[in-house]
């Protein structure tokens, strides 16, 4: 009999197979199958969460997958508070994205294929978060990578889409390389890759601090790739070439958070190695600021959201880096709701504006798209960290954690986080103001704008409710909310190194609320003066507009040298050595064939004679010496 966990995992796989194999005949029905599967998984996921709250956990090995020498890896599943939270997050967003996709993808020729990929993604993601060892987690890790690649390049007829898919795939390979080596190293030191045993052995002191640092950093390299942290974040903005539901599900709510999950899951390693934790935190804050600064000037609605995602992921890494794992996961949880919501709302806007992405052509849409507009605003308030919406609770938990942590320069970390919060608030309200307020800037598009069908607006409403309430319900009161009680047993309480020193908690709260409001006010002022979205001649604007020239830097420093080396290898090594060997072999064989062809008379006696010649030679060879 299958356990609940196995059913949850197998449901989307079943949906993927059905809509993938039979999609041609099922047509639109494949969407129902896929959605039903994910819906059932969602309900079972909620049940699992309730079970875990009641203290029922699962850590089972279903069967031995690899067994070689001392190495064994099982297909096994682990359900604890951490994976239960992830499970609920993933299945919830997945389900509503599925519903939303009905409306969004309705006219697409690849309808069934889309749902097959989507279900396959959900399956892989569930394997990732429910696995009880690193190896199986890596399977899910690669699975979501493949699905991400397939979905970014879903409209593969478009070169930009297929290029973006390849970019995502290649950049992720770099991260996976580190991740895999991290797993190998871990096995080398601990002799196991199973979470429970790793925790037991590493916690028991079997791992030297240097090794812990190495493994932790290697795993973090993987996390950087998957979760789009500097320097591997470049693929995520390009990934916006994929269909918007995909951006919402994979590139905002679920897959990109896998890196955060991995760090949280490996918390024992980061606790052992303060260095690694500091690196994580500083990379996180750097990424947060970098991405936020680019988002300040970008005018592509989806890319703004993409950079916003990168930036928010940076916040989550600050959280897990400074040891406030609960805060990081909490932010992951709330972020999934409001960022998913905003992506879907952006999709709704695009739907209304004939797939126009440039915000400079929007304006004044609120009157035409009330549901989309208001839910978008709710999401924006949430991400800006204005109480009592969800984002406030989790972001404040992270900032407080950073402020109180042991990490070198923790106060600077906190200060930069606050600066980032101002920027977040500014660019989000800039987006809202440019899109929904002011005068329509493209009359033609504006005339055709309309509210989206219910299959798209209902998910928006549901997620908006989530964006308003999940943070407060689970996070109140700050640092002592339900989420802390739920996750702390697994992840450990944040270590308040500086104790009550420095600013008091209420001051911290006040500052972060002020930061959110400050960004809003700044945006409003600029909107009033008509400078939002306008070109600027200031050099800083140009740098930001060109995304700090990171892509260009990569192009010059990595891509072109490799390209040149490849050209050289092709002209010199390939044509002379490889072709030489290949042609030489060919000529040799031809020559030998010509010689041996003389022996082939077609007459049996000749053949018999040569056979006999060989036999006699063999007899002599065996006997004489």
């Amino acid at each position, binding site marked *: 009999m299958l356990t609940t966990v196995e059913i949850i995992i197998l449901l989307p796989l079943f949906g993927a197979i059905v809509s993938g194999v039979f999609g041609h005949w099922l047509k639109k029905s494949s969407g129902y199958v896929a959605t039903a599967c994910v819906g059932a998984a969602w309900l079972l996921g909620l049940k699992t969460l309730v079970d875990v709250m009641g203290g029922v956990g699962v850590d089972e090995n279903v069967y031995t997958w690899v067994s070689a020498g001392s190495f064994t890896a099982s297909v096994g599943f682990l359900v604890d508070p951490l994976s239960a939270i992830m499970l609920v997050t993933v299945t919830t967003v997945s389900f509503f994205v599925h519903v939303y996709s009905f409306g969004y993808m309705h006219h697409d020729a690849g309808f069934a294929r889309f749902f097959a990929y989507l279900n396959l993604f959900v399956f892989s993601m569930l394997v990732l978060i429910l696995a009880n060892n690193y190896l199986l987690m890596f399977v899910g890790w690669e699975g979501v990578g493949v699905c991400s690649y397939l979905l970014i390049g879903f409209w593969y007829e478009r070169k930009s889409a297929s290029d973006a898919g390849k970019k995502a795939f290649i950049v992720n390979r770099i991260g996976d390389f580190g991740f895999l080596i991290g797993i190998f190293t871990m096995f080398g030191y601990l002799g196991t890759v199973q979470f429970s045993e790793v925790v037991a052995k590493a916690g028991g002191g079997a791992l030297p601090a240097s090794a812990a640092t190495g493994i932790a950093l290697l795993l973090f390299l993987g996390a950087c790739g998957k979760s789009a942290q500097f320097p591997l974040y470049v693929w995520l903005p390009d990934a916006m070439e994929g269909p918007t539901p995909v951006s919402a599900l994979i590139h905002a709510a679920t897959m990109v958070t896998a890196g955060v999950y991995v760090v949280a899951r490996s918390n024992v390693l980061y606790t052992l190695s303060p260095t690694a934790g500091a690196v994580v935190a500083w990379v996180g804050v750097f990424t947060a600021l970098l991405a936020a600064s680019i988002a300040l000037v970008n005018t592509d609605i989806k890319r703004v959201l993409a950079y916003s995602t990168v930036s928010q992921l940076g916040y989550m890494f600050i959280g897990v880096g400074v040891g406030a794992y609960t805060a990081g996961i909490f932010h992951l949880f709330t972020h999934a709701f409001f960022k998913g919501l905003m992506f879907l709302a952006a999709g709704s806007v695009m739907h209304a504006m004939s797939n126009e992405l440039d915000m400079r052509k929007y304006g004044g849409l609120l009157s035409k798209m009330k549901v989309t507009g208001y839910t978008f605003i709710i999401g924006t308030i949430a991400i800006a960290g204005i109480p009592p919406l969800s984002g406030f609770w989790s972001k404040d938990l992270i900032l407080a954690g950073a402020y109180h942590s042991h990490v070198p320069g923790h106060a600077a970390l906190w200060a930069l986080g606050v600066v980032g919060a101002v920027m977040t608030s500014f660019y989000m309200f800039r987006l809202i103001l440019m899109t929904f307020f002011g005068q329509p800037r493209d009359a033609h598009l504006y005339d055709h704008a309309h509210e989206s069908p219910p299959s798209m607006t209902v998910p928006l409403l549901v997620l908006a409710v989530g964006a308003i309430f999940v943070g407060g319900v689970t996070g109140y009161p700050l640092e002592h909310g339900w989420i802390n009680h739920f996750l702390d047993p697994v992840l450990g309480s944040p270590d308040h190194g500086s104790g009550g020193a420095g600013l008091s908690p209420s001051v911290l709260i006040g500052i972060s609320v002020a930061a959110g409001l400050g960004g809003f006010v700044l945006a409003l002022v600029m909107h009033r003066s008509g400078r939002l979205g306008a070109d600027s001649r200031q050099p800083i604007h140009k740098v930001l507009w060109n995304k700090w020239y990171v892509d260009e830097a990569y192009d010059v420093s990595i891509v072109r040298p490799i390209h040149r080396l490849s050209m050289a290898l092709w002209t010199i090594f390939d044509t002379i050595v490889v072709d030489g060997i290949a042609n030489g072999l060919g000529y040799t064989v031809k020559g030998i064939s010509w010689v041996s062809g003389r022996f*082939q008379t077609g*007459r*049996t*006696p000749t053949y018999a004679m040569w056979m*006999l010649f060989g036999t006699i030679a063999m007899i002599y060879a065996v006997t004489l010496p």
Partner: protein
Amino acid sequence: MAVATSHYLILSAILFSIGVAGVLTRRNAIVIFMCIELMLNAVNLAFVAFARHLGQADGQVFVFFVMAVAAAEVAVGLAIIIAVFRNRETVDVAEVNLLKW
């Protein structure tokens, strides 16, 4: 007084060589086939002689298999000869040069 094993082996060698000579010199496919049978028999004789020499039955079992395969081979070979004869009106191997690409 049992005959020495080497005697049997020498006899086997002689029979085998005669068979080989037949295969090489004769042109009639059927006779060539018979010479092959002779060679197989020579080998069988050696097998049985060894079986006695070693006091083990394995050699005789091998002969059994050789006979089974020989029977199959003869059936197929004669069928091929008949088929060739139908096409070419000859069983002279010198005139049949089909074994060529």
